């Protein structure tokens, strides 16, 4: 049973389109994250939600909108996709209140043409 699962794993789309990536964790964690990994493998935090509340919102274009319907799910919606949005997006989760580690999904590779 996958701990952190993301769908889709691959996404190829045209510039200007809108797309969503879904993430679910079955670890009972209270915090979920979206990270963006660029072509140089650099991992950048985008958003973090704790119990459905936004707690980290790094400098990300407002075309990116996270949504957390419950603490086990964190979805990422991207409007008006641009070439520079091409990257691998990782969902992760952790448990606060202690030195918990991050558990990562397998990533969603987004290619914008």
């Amino acid at each position, binding site marked *: 049973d996958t701990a952190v699962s993301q769908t889709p794993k691959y996404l190829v789309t045209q510039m200007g389109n809108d797309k969503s990536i879904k993430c679910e964790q079955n670890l009972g964690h209270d915090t979920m994250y979206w990270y963006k990994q660029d072509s140089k493998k*650099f991992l950048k935090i985008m958003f973090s939600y704790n119990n459905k509340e936004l707690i980290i919102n790094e400098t990300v274009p407002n075309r990116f909108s996270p949504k957390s319907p419950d603490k086990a799910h964190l979805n990422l919606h991207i409007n008006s996709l641009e070439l520079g949005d091409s990257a691998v997006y990782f969902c992760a989760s952790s448990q606060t209140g202690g030195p918990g580690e991050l558990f990562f999904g397998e990533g969603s590779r987004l290619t914008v043409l």
Partner: protein
Amino acid sequence: AQSVTQPDIHITVSEGASLELRCNYSYGATPYLFWYVQSPGQGLQLLLKYFSGDTLVQGIKGFEAEFKRSQSSFNLRKPSVHWSDAAEYFCAVALFTGNQFYFGTGTSLTVIP
């Protein structure tokens, strides 16, 4: 500002040779420290972590890391590298709240036969 530095972008070692990957951090206090590994096309997997106590920590796949407070370092080591260790390695730190993780830029490891 907090930062995590991995000075080596790319390292090449021969199979069977020893390995050391460097990580330095800059924080006001001792954070929680982690090493993650990312195999091609995969998500990130935790190798080991340091919270407190013994400064030499053992991880999976034969890896170990040593925390040196005086040097603000948390270097990863393996006495004998296997071809399957070829991957991207990330050092990460977390603040005491446990829900803010910062990653280094990664070190790409190539293993030659």
